[in-house]
């Protein structure tokens, strides 16, 4: 396997902090996506202490903008924020779109091309039916070879799950424990799509969507918006009013997109590569990470994330989850927000919303889902079945 290439002259770059992070309640939005994006941006600016006029660039993510018949939405958002002259671009990387946008903001600020940037991701699909939404989601995979053979998006992750269960003996009840844990966390998160805990019986009795996945293995289709204010502290530290998160690493990697061309169906190589790169850039080890928000579009995706990033050996994460290790107050807290699974997954808002959770944990605003002593957090955001992956590491300032 070839290594990710890229300059590693990190000691010479500008520091990059997240000064503000806001999201709406995931679920169904009455307003249009662009309106929700502007509202989340205004809230993020208010939290940060910076104003729109401080921004040098806006990075927008809206992978399924086609559902609202709207592309090129950056200028609309900037105009609504009173900064029509600021450049913008849409960053698309399927489900990892807004973490890819955050990476672009990081690169701009670290490289001195901007002093501050707005990252805003949003999605609205609730006005189209499940069949159409399922069809859109399938477009993130290899349409010609996977979707043409009837693979839905859950079907592709389910195919990885079937292989993982066969190789490592992973059980449905262990996946169910992940669903139960993430729903319990979401019940303590006012931003979450689902606000009620579920039981193992509810999980096991829910219908099979794509074997071996039950309905409760799958994240919901959610609407939502999340925004981040990213800034160079050398320019804006005096303005910041919330506890910021220093970006210790912003790393991305890719894998072969089509499952049939993967060497191993029980692993997502991009997760391993991005995590290795992020830990190396941050000069940190696995044990230094207090908590993580990982990409659990399906319960098995949480298992793959923990294992592929090297936090537990292959075949151990599902069992560890069932033993309580990944609870918000456990040894390895995973998805204290409720994750994509229960907080919801408005595709292009997800990566930014993971960072909202990091800021809430750092700012003491996580309530009953608080991770004790949270000062270093990691976010892991996957595009489709692992063709893309972003890993960010944040430190409380």
């Amino acid at each position, binding site marked *: 396997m*070839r290594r990710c290439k890229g300059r590693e002259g990190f000691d010479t770059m500008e520091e990059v902090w997240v000064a503000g992070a806001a999201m709406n309640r995931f679920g169904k939005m009455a307003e249009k996506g662009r309106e929700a994006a502007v509202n989340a941006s205004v809230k993020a600016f208010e939290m940060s202490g910076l104003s729109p006029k401080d921004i040098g660039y806006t990075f927008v993510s809206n992978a399924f903008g086609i559902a609202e018949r709207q592309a090129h939405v950056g200028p609309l958002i900037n105009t609504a924020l009173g900064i029509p002259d600021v450049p913008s671009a849409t960053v698309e990387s399927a489900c990892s779109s807004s973490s890819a946008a955050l990476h672009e903001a990081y690169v701009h600020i670290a490289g001195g091309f901007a002093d501050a940037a707005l990252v805003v991701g949003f999605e609205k699909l609730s006005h189209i039916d*499940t*069949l*159409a939404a*399922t*069809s859109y989601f*399938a477009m993130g995979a*290899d349409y*010609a*070879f*996977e*979707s*043409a*053979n*009837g*693979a*839905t998006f*859950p*079907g*592709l992750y*389910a*195919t*990885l*799950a*079937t*292989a993982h269960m*066969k190789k490592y003996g992973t059980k449905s009840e262990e996946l169910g424990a992940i669903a139960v844990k993430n729903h319990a966390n979401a019940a303590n998160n006012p931003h979450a799509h689902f606000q009620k805990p579920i039981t193992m019986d509810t999980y096991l009795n829910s*219908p*099979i*969507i*794509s*074997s*071996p*996945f039950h309905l409760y293995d799958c994240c919901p289709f959610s609407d939502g918006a999340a925004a981040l204010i990213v800034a160079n502290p050398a320019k804006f530290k005096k303005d910041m009013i919330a506890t910021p998160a220093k970006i210790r690493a912003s790393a991305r990697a890719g894998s*072969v997109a*089509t*499952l*049939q*061309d993967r060497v191993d*169906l029980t692993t997502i190589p991009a997760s391993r590569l991005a995590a290795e790169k992020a830990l190396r850039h941050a000069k940190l080890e696995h044990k230094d990470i207090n908590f993580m928000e990982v990409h659990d579009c399906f319960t098995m995706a949480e298992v793959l994330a923990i294992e592929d990033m090297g936090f537990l050996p292959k075949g151990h994460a599902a069992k560890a989850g069932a033993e309580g290790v990944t609870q918000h107050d456990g040894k390895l807290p995973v998805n204290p927000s409720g994750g994509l699974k229960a907080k919801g997954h408005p595709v292009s808002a997800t990566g930014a919303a993971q960072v909202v959770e990091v800021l809430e944990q750092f700012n003491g605003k996580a309530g009953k889902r608080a991770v004790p002593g949270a000062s270093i957090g990691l976010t892991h955001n996957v595009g489709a079945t692992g063709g893309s992956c972003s890993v960010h590491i944040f430190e409380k300032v």
Partner: protein
Amino acid sequence: MAASDAKGNGTMTHAIGDFVHAYQEEGKIIGVACSSCGYKTATSIQRCPRCGVANLKEVEFPKKGKVLSFSVQNVPSDEFLNDAPYAYVLVELEDGTRVSGWMPEVKKIGDLAIGEPVRWKASYKPGMVFEKEAGGPQ
């Protein structure tokens, strides 16, 4: 097979449309093999994803293999609305090449197992239908 673009200019090689044409019109599974590392794939590439080398030749693959993994689809996408339930399958062909396909005869998880022998049956909109070597579900 001489690959060509829509105008017959011959500029495209290993085109997706040629692969589909081979399933549908010729009853063949075709793809490319890397002359350097030997990697074989039934998807469209211009450089080998394993070793990066551009020296690829078009090859025809065997039509028998075994199930690598699968998932029974109860909630299909729009193009397969009238076919559910069925299984999406990853098949390892006898020469080691891996392809995607689907199996209408597999209606629930117990109908198929990893490692079961399967064979290519037909092309269908525009994927590949596989069936169990032994015949239909027992």
